[in-house]
């Protein structure tokens, strides 16, 4: 199959945009669920960049890294959502601005 | 070997004293006495071996074997660090002073310490070991090690057994000494590196680093590193503020050790390291150092007069007296340097006695505030007489050690700088003001104490009188026949001057 004929940059720009937007979400949202979602978006963007790079060099490494990212994301979400439940229980809210016991 | 044994006895004695606390709570202080006694014996026996004329030989600054005793053991050969101890007349005098004042310190804490007496005596002995190490070490890194070793037990002494504001005082003491000590470490390492550049091998030995050809700016900076560390310990005028707090809050034995010996390590350091390692830079710096000394003399005396706390007053008087030492060392002639050595010894004894007096007063009256005392002579005449003796000693009464010291310093200084001498001579007047003020507020005048307190006042007992009498005799001896001490220190001072006259411009500058 004769694949896609577009410059690598375009994919990377998309990935960058998604990454930046994920960051924006992370900084903007106070609800921890949205923060986790933003993280997912960022991870996904990184994964996209890897896969694109793998496609550029016709190597499998990109996808392997994607796999690893996937497992990181899964673990992170599992633990993260567990934390969400705990936060809801302790603080009766998901607003991370009220949960600041880590203050120095 | 004999010197290492001396340090070993003190360190091990401390450990044993600590452990002995489990069997009986009086045991540690006896063990402490025995340990110091053993150390003294060890010192004397190691001196006995020497030929009598070796005490009058001028040691060659760069030849280790010309010293009285020299001992070297490889420690970290890769960096040229060795366990190198050596003794000349100066170290001998100061080690003797250390051990004798150690006995005084033990005696002064005889009934004062109830809480963990074993650990107290252990810290006391380790401080002594550290101080002796400082006076003996000739490897710069080993010297730094001992410098720290004496600091930590002292810190514990203040922080655990101190008075009401002990945490603050101990921390202040620690930080001042530590920060300045780190500057010294920096200088030591840079100096050793310069030695590597010049000699081609690493060495931290005093003899290898003496008279390195250094770039003058670098030498000046390195000298400042040493100077600041020593001057903080001395303490000289602008960096003395740890001392009143530390002295005031420390337990009696701690104050005795601090004032009697620890301050002398600063002066010793200046004399042994700062000046000989960087003679040119020190010469350039001499005027500033002397100004600091003169400022300290006056400033300490004025502040001593302003105090209401007995111990604080004595502490500030130490600042004033150590200003004389700084003046003497940088006046750079044998009269003034002899005076500085004498001042170290005489001040060690007189101030230790005054601190012991303060401790005794606090134990009896539960206050150090002089405005709450007064008229104590009536109730405790023996104590009053002792206080009077040491008060007039500290104001420089001729016939006592402090006078000899101050007079020699000032005579020597006059040849160098009459103006400085005039300023420092004002210190004689201000010393009279605060010493007599102290006597008036404590032992003379109307008593401010409740009758209940005065009825139960106990005059000095046998143990205290014995200690005091010993110190009085020491001061009288230093004041009337100081020649043995001067003879012992003279070769060291000669060798110092021999080092200094290496470069001709120094001789010019000293005129």
């Amino acid at each position: 199959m004769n694949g896609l004929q577009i410059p690598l940059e375009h994919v990377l720009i998309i990935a960058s945009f998604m990454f930046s937007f994920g960051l924006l979400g992370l900084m903007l949202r106070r609800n921890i669920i949205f923060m986790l979602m933003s993280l997912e978006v960022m991870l996904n963007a990184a994964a996209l960049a890897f896969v694109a790079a793998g496609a550029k060099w016709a190597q499998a490494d990109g996808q392997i890294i994607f796999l690893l990212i996937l497992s990181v994301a899964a673990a992170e979400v599992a633990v993260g959502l567990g934390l969400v439940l705990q936060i809801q229980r302790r603080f009766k809210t998901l607003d991370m601005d009220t949960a600041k016991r880590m203050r120095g | 070997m004999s010197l290492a044994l001396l340090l070993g006895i003190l360190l091990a004695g401390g450990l044993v004293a600590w452990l002995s606390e489990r069997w009986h709570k009086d045991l540690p202080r006896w063990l402490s006495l025995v340990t110091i006694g053993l150390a003294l014996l060890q010192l004397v026996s190691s001196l006995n071996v020497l030929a009598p004329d070796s005490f009058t030989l001028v040691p060659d600054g760069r030849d280790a074997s010309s010293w009285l005793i020299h001992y070297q053991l490889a420690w970290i050969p890769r960096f040229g660090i060795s366990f190198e101890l050596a003794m000349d007349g100066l170290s001998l005098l100061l080690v003797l002073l250390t051990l004798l004042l150690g006995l005084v310190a033990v005696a002064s804490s005889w009934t004062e310490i109830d809480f963990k007496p074993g650990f107290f005596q252990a810290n006391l002995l380790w401080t002594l070991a550290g101080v002796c190490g400082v006076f003996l070490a000739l490897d710069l890194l080993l010297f730094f090690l001992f410098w720290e070793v004496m600091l930590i037990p002292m810190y514990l002494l203040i922080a655990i057994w101190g008075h009401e504001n002990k945490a603050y005082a101990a921390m202040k003491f620690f930080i001042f000494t530590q920060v300045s000590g780190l500057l010294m470490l920096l200088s030591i390492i840079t100096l050793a590196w310069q030695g590597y550049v010049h000699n081609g091998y690493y060495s931290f030995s005093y003899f290898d680093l003496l008279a390195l050809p250094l770039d003058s700016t670098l030498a000046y900076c390195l000298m400042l590193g040493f100077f600041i560390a020593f001057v903080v310990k001395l303490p000289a005028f602008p960096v003395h503020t740890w001392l009143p707090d530390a002295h005031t809050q420390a337990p009696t034995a701690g104050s005795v050790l601090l004032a009697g010996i620890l301050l002398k390590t600063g002066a010793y350091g200046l004399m042994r390291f700062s000046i000989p390692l960087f003679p040119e830079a020190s010469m350039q710096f001499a005027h500033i150092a002397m100004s600091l000394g003169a400022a300290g003399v006056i400033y300490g005396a004025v502040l001593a007069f302003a105090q209401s706390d007995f111990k604080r007053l004595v502490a500030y008087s130490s600042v004033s007296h150590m200003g004389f030492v700084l003046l003497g060392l940088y006046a750079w002639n044998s009269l003034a340097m002899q005076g500085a050595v004498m001042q170290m010894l005489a001040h060690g004894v007189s101030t230790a006695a005054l601190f012991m007096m303060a401790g005794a007063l606090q134990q009896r009256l539960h206050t150090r505030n002089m405005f709450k005392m007064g008229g104590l002579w009536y109730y405790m005449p023996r104590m009053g007489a002792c206080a009077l003796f040491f008060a007039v000693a500290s104001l420089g009464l001729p016939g006592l050690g402090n006078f000899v010291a101050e007079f020699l310093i000032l005579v020597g200084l006059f040849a160098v700088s009459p103006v400085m001498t005039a300023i420092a001579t004002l210190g004689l007047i201000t010393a009279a003001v605060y010493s007599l003020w102290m006597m008036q507020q404590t032992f003379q005048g109307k008593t401010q104490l409740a009758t209940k307190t005065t009825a139960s006042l106990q005059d000095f007992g046998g143990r205290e009188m014995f200690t005091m009498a010993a110190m009085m005799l020491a001061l009288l001896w230093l004041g009337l026949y100081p020649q043995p001490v001067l003879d012992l220190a003279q070769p060291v001072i000669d060798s110092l001057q021999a080092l200094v006259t290496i470069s001709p411009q120094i001789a010019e500058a000293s005129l």
Partner: protein
Amino acid sequence: MAGSNYLWLIPFFPLLSATLLMVTAGQLPKKIIGFLGAGSIALSALCVALQAQHFLASGEIMQVTLWTWMSVANFAPGIAFYIDGLSIVMMSVITGVGFLIHLYSLEFMDDDSSYSRYFAYMNLFVAAMLLLVMADNLLLLYLGWEGVGVCSYLLVGFWYRDPANGKAARKAFVVTRVGDAAMALGLFLLFTELGSLDIQTLLLAADSKWQSGDLIPTIATALLLGGAVGKSAQLPLHTWLPDAMAGPTPVSALIHAATMVTAGVYLIARHYSLFLLAPITLEAVAWIGLATLLIAAFTALAQQDIKRILAYSTISQIGYMFLALGVGAFSAGIFHLMTHAFFKALLFLAAGAVIHCLHHEHNIFKMGGLRTRLPIVFWSFLIGSAALAALPFTSGFYSKDPILLSAWAMPNIGSYLWAGGLLGALLTAIYSFRLVFVVFFGEAKTLPNKQPGWKMSLPLALLCLLSIIGGWFVLPLDHVFPAYSHGEINHSVEIISIATPLIGLAIAYGLFLGKQLSISGFTQSTLGKALQSFCFSGWRFDALYQLLWVCPYQVLAQLWRNEPIDYLYRGIVSLMQWSNEQLSKLQSGELRWYATSMVFGLVILVLIMLRSLS
């Protein structure tokens, strides 16, 4: 027992006795204390007498070194004695008058609880004073000098439970210490310039090194003069002596009249050849003496406390000695020193007897009519006053007259000095007989409760004798000082000198006894009152010094009390704490803040990387 080998015994006896008394700390029975205290001085006096006889017979100057005190480089003072005529005179005065005063003290201090301490201090004082006059070098002299200062401090503040005594003692010590500091500087200068502190070596070296009028001897003598002025209570350091009367009266007699305060005179006389090299200083000595004697005499006129009158008269008489030294009549100065020691000790002891027998009353206007009630004291006082006023044929006359004549003989300034001295003599006569008339004549206001015993009477009698015949003594000073002759003296000058005290006596009689004269009109006027209180306060020197030195020092001490330097370090600590607070605010616990700051850091990092890439 005579000869240089036994010289050390002289200061040794009092020193030993003082040490014994201190070590036993009052545990000995009173008899033994008294025996030790007075006996040691007697022994010492005996030794001095033997030595003096030996010296007068042989004329041999004795020099002995007990041991080398310290030896550093070329600085090697010894514990060494140098005995010549001057020293012999001083030693005789110290031990002779000293012994009489000790004897007197046995009774005077009898009911005091600190009997032993008193004699310990007194003996220590005598030892130190002997060292001062026997010293071969300036350092040992300085030891004695400071030693007598400390003893004076201890004895002035002897009754330590009254804070006022302590204050007086401290004042005495600190004010003299100011002079001592100047003297110490003089010592440094002399050593630095001449390379020795041995007095004889030093004087010789000075003679060969300097010309008369050189700058360095002028400075050096000025500094020594500072020490002398402090110790001898001369202007401007005289304020301590009147307050020093707080001590027991025999102390005032011994220390503050006969011996210690004349140490300054001794110092200058001992270094006379050095002072001759500095004519400016020598003239200053004369002027200081004159100013002091006048100011003190005026002040004495206005005092009411019997001891303070005597104290001011002491200051005034030492002023005469300074005047004598200043005009170069050194032996006249020393002669006056000796006669003054006799009659002033006599006066003080008599005053002490009055105070002792009169319930410790000091105010002369509460006394009166004691002539019949205390006859021995009266006669002593009368003789003493006569000698003090230099009435003809008393010892004071023979010593004061040469001083005035020598002053007259001074070129240029001589007549001023003479006139001033004469005015002083007039005032001296007035105040001394004012004292006699007010205390011993008139109606009795307080009745004595006891009579002096033999231990007090005997010294009084002996001192009376000395005060009368002291003028005929010939002092062995010919070889010490250069021969001095004041040449032809106008006879009218001599007659005026003799007549002046008599005029003073007459005025005093008219004012205080016969009441033919009255100055109440003047004393009641505003100006008169102001003048009187001005004189009473000692010309306000105390207030001036309080304002100039004491207050600023106290204010300075209070200002610095809390360590200005420490504010710097506390500032560093505060800065650390402040930055800690600020930085820990960053650690807000807000997740979004962390994220934002991380992104901020990321942005910066990427920027840096971009820059380094391009």
